[in-house]
């Protein structure tokens, strides 16, 4: 999940009696699975919640280039370098679709970027963890993209048309990302003792941060209840986290790697794995800016934005000159 703890109205879901006529008609469309399009009437809070959610998702794609970009120059073969470049290029492209989707809600990409850099808008907590060895490229693809897919697949059915269509395109590419990650893990797990050690170490470091990607339990959250009523959130965080654990445990077993959770076990009665919750205090620390890489990640993005100002201004000035020349002819 690339959007965590997105706030909605904070007031709980209105009953039909409490809704205005417009709100009732809007909710009826959503209940009938009719997509909401940019020019349709929508409650202001629906629009704001979507901007927060799509914006956070877009920022995550952009900041998410950095931990993988950290290894592009050190990729061990030409093929791996190409695959990683293609993947990071996809992520920048996902950012572009998502910013474009958010722009249909009346907020510009530049405004959202400024909000990211000022700390007003967030990106996924996962990208504040470092990538220390090549096996981390495997773990990021396998676990991080795996967790993202878990969330994005249902979001293809989300109520807002542009967001839903962006998700459909993104999901196609994400499954390739996850496969390439698992493929790296496979090579590492079957490789030399050092490679196996890297693979296990990567799993140890990325397991709990991946579980945190779904956000804390939102079973009782008024924000989530509203977002689910509006179908901009389809499943609860706990449902998705469980699904992710159930899917990932057999994959780890196949790799011959151990999930770093001594209490992990199959629960036949529930038909699911029981597992240890991540340390939520760590999660809140990371969200507040105290993760291992928050300073570097935001610093990198801020530098890129500020050092790129002359480029954006230069290209804009040239475009204006050209337009003026064409108009004069």
């Amino acid at each position, binding site marked *: 999940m690339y959007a965590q703890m997105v706030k909605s109205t904070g007031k709980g879901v209105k009953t039909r009696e409490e809704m205005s006529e417009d709100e009732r008609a809007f909710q009826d469309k959503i209940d009938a699975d009719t997509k909401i399009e940019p020019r349709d009437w929508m409650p202001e809070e629906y629009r704001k919640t979507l901007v927060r959610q799509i914006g956070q998702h877009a920022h995550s794609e*952009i900041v998410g*280039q*950095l931990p*993988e*970009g950290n290894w*592009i*120059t*050190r*990729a*061990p*073969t*030409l*093929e*791996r*370098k*190409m695959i990683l*470049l*293609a993947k*990071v*290029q996809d992520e*920048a*492209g996902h*950012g*572009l679709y998502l*910013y474009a989707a958010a722009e249909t809600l009346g907020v510009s*990409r530049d405004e959202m970027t400024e909000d990211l850099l000022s700390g007003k808008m967030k990106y996924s907590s996962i990208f504040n963890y470092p990538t220390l060895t*090549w096996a981390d490229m495997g773990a990021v693809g396998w676990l991080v993209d795996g967790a993202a897919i878990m969330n994005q697949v249902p979001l293809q059915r989300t109520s807002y048309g542009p967001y839903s269509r962006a998700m459909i395109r993104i999901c196609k590419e994400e499954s390739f990302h996850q496969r390439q990650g698992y493929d*790296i893990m496979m*090579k590492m797990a079957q*490789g*030399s003792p*050092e*490679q196996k050690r890297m693979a296990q170490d990567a799993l140890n470091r990325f397991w709990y941060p991946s579980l945190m990607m779904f956000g804390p339990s939102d079973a009782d959250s008024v924000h989530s209840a509203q977002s689910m009523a509006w179908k901009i959130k389809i499943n609860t965080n706990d449902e998705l986290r469980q699904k992710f654990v159930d899917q990932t445990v057999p994959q780890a077993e196949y790799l011959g790697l151990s999930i770093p959770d001594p209490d992990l076990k199959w629960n036949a009665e529930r038909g699911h794995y029981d597992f240890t919750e991540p340390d939520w205090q760590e999660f809140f620390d990371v969200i507040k800016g105290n993760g291992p890489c928050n300073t570097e990640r935001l610093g*990198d993005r801020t*530098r*890129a*934005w500020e*050092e*790129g*100002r*002359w*480029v*954006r*201004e*230069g*290209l*804009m*000035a*040239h*475009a204006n*000159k050209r337009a003026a020349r064409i108009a004069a002819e």
Partner: protein
Amino acid sequence: MADTIDRTALQQFLLRMGDNTLILGHRVSEWCGHAPVLEEDIALANTALDLIGQTQLWLDYAAEVEGAGRSADDLAFLRDVWDFRNVLLVELPNGDFGQTLMRQFLYDAWASIMLGRLQKSADERVREIAEKAAKENAYHVERSADTVVGLGDGTEESHTRMQAALDYLYPYVGELFESDATDAAMVEAGVAPDPAGLREDYDALVGRVMADATLRLPEKAYVHRGGRSGTMHTEHLGHLLCTMQWLQRAYPGCRW
């Protein structure tokens, strides 16, 4: 390909082509996630990806011609500085975005002419690689030329920066047109053109773009050379290789 061809010369020629794309592709990939605008991040990653793809083709062939059981990856990751045959231009540091795009254009302009000629090579493999690379290069040169023009003819600051980039890089352009015994052997075998023969078209193309960009080409620039013959490199290449080759050197013989 003629059986009589000097295989050492052919291998050297292929290394020159593949090392140019490898080192430039690596440099461009250093930008990942740090471009001035999202579209540029995508374009830079795409350019790097194309260049590394071309590297794979050139170095695969170089390794085959060498016939010593080495792979393209061995050539990329296990040679030291003195065995690299790229021109010095491509190993120079990225500098600011303007310097990166100016270097890209100065290379792309050369590649667009070189690849055009190589599509008529007597060597089928060279022809095939050039055909594929030329398609990618057509997009690269269009984009790098547009960006050089946009920034050269942009604001006062962007103009000043682009002129500084051109002044710094231009002394490294001359090496692209140096001819030696390897080139003579390639001309003789009909594999590749004489580099010196590309200069006229290059000057015409670069002159046009710089005029649109309102930039002034340095007159009688000194020519730094030695990369493509392997007699000299800049100090920058060693650091680039330290990064690029680190995993293969630290954990030799592994499969990745």
